[in-house]
């Protein structure tokens, strides 16, 4: 992959919680199209890594980072970059489904717009809601109950509603932090199906502790261990012919 194609590039990215380092000197180029999986044992810094990309990490008390992150070649730490505007371009789906309980399904989908610009017109809102719910494979299930509270859905549907809410803002990048960890296998499979659709339109970075899932959904995979990037390659290579002994040990289940 040439550097020009990289959607996200980090150079010397390090991050801390207080005095404790969680990421050390990460250099990575993430392709514009397709799914990149971030794998590694608990506490290896993989969630922190994606939370740096949308500058959510710095919102935690005592958290800080250094180094460079470039999106489309532009440094996102720069003083001229507004983190709030940046987060509209870089969506995030969390570990636990977290639809807004005080909002209907429809308002949940429109939440990003309601937050930023105020409620869109009825017709425009209908359009956005339908498009986003279709992309999240929820439209046929929910079209007749858009007024119900977002929390009235099953947890798998709630997570897809959160994906729809993210897509409604038409982001360029979608970050996913173990989006299936709170879901049963059937609901997880639906999210994975969705990923196959999303890869065409968005840069997707997914953190997962599930090896099979990483193998199924991603084109490229990065293995993190103790805050360091150990190996980054095509997913096939990582799973069949890893260069580093530690990667192989993790993949084959010797630890983690």
């Amino acid at each position, binding site marked *: 992959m040439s550097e020009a194609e990289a959607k996200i590039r980090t150079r010397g990215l390090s991050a801390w919680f207080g005095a404790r380092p969680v990421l050390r000197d990460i250099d990575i180029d993430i392709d514009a199209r397709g799914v990149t999986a971030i794998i590694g044992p608990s506490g290896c810094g993989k969630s922190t890594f994606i939370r740096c990309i949308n500058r959510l990490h710095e919102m935690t008390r005592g958290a800080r980072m250094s180094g460079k992150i470039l999106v489309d070649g532009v440094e996102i730490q720069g003083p001229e970059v507004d983190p709030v505007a940046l987060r509209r371009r870089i*969506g995030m789906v969390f570990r636990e489904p977290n639809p*807004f*309980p005080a909002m209907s399904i429809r308002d949940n989908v429109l939440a990003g717009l309601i*937050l930023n610009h105020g409620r869109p017109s009825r017709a425009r809102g209908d359009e956005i809601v339908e498009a986003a719910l279709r992309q999240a494979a929820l439209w046929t299930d929910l079209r007749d109950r858009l007024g119900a509270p977002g929390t009235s859905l099953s947890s798998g549907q709630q997570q897809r509603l959160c994906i729809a*809410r993210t897509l409604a803002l038409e982001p360029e990048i979608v970050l996913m932090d173990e989006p299936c960890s709170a879901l049963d296998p059937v609901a997880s499979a639906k999210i994975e199906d969705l990923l196959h659709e999303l890869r065409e339109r968005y840069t997707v970075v997914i953190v997962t502790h599930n090896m099979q899932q990483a193998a199924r959904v991603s084109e490229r995979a990065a293995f993190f261990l103790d805050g360091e990037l150990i190996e980054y390659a095509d997913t096939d290579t990582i799973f069949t012919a890893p260069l580093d002994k530690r990667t192989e040990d993790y993949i084959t289940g010797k630890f983690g």
Partner: protein
Amino acid sequence: MSGRKLSASDRALRWLCAAAVLVPIAVLSSLLVSVALVGFTQLDAEVLAAVGGALRDSVYLGLLSAGLAVPLGVGAAIGLEQYGARATWAELLDAKVAVLAGVPSVIYGLLGLELFARALSSGRGLLAGALTIALLVSPMIFVASREALRGVSASQREAGLALGGTRWQIVRHVVLPMAIPGIVSGTILAVARALGSAAPLLVLGGFAAARVAPEAADPLAVLPVRIFSWIAGPAREGAGGNAAAGSFVLMVVCLGLHGLALVIRGRSTGPREAEA
């Protein structure tokens, strides 16, 4: 078997817990019943008029002080909420206000006397009383509102941030709608407490009124102050009956407000959790 060995102390603890629950319930219900029996039997047209006048004054004072304290308490809590968990000074302020909420109400009476009645020379009328009661309840409203706002989980705020919301937008559209039932019920409880407290108003001037002219019209002679004057004032015919009936009405009002607060709080969590 260890289970059998433990069972003696287990049983003792169980009795202790049961007693801890039952004794307050028994005391409260006997109080309720006796006040209700005495108070209810005393209710006639004359008593009703006396108690009704005092209740009307209570409502005026309660509404006016809530009108002053709610914007202050809730506004401060929301304002502070914007700064999130990052600001140490916000934490300090929290602790300070929590202490204020624990200051005995009679101290607020002294403060009100000095500050409003004397310094601002607004007299010892309704306004001074309402300002004093507002000072008394606004820390309680602030503490209840902060709790309600902080009860909204961090994941909700993060979701808002990830959608490109500013702190204020997230407070306005995500946090506040979820916290409103808690804020409202906390406010009702604070106002209910203020309605029942006589001490600050007695300090503020109600005491003189109560001793000298128990039946004279006075905006500070709210229900608890009247009850005090009926009991402590010069012995007159009917004072005992008025006191009993007044206590009964005051208790019904306060318990009613507490019940309302419970219903509002229960509503906010009940159905939603059932649906989830």
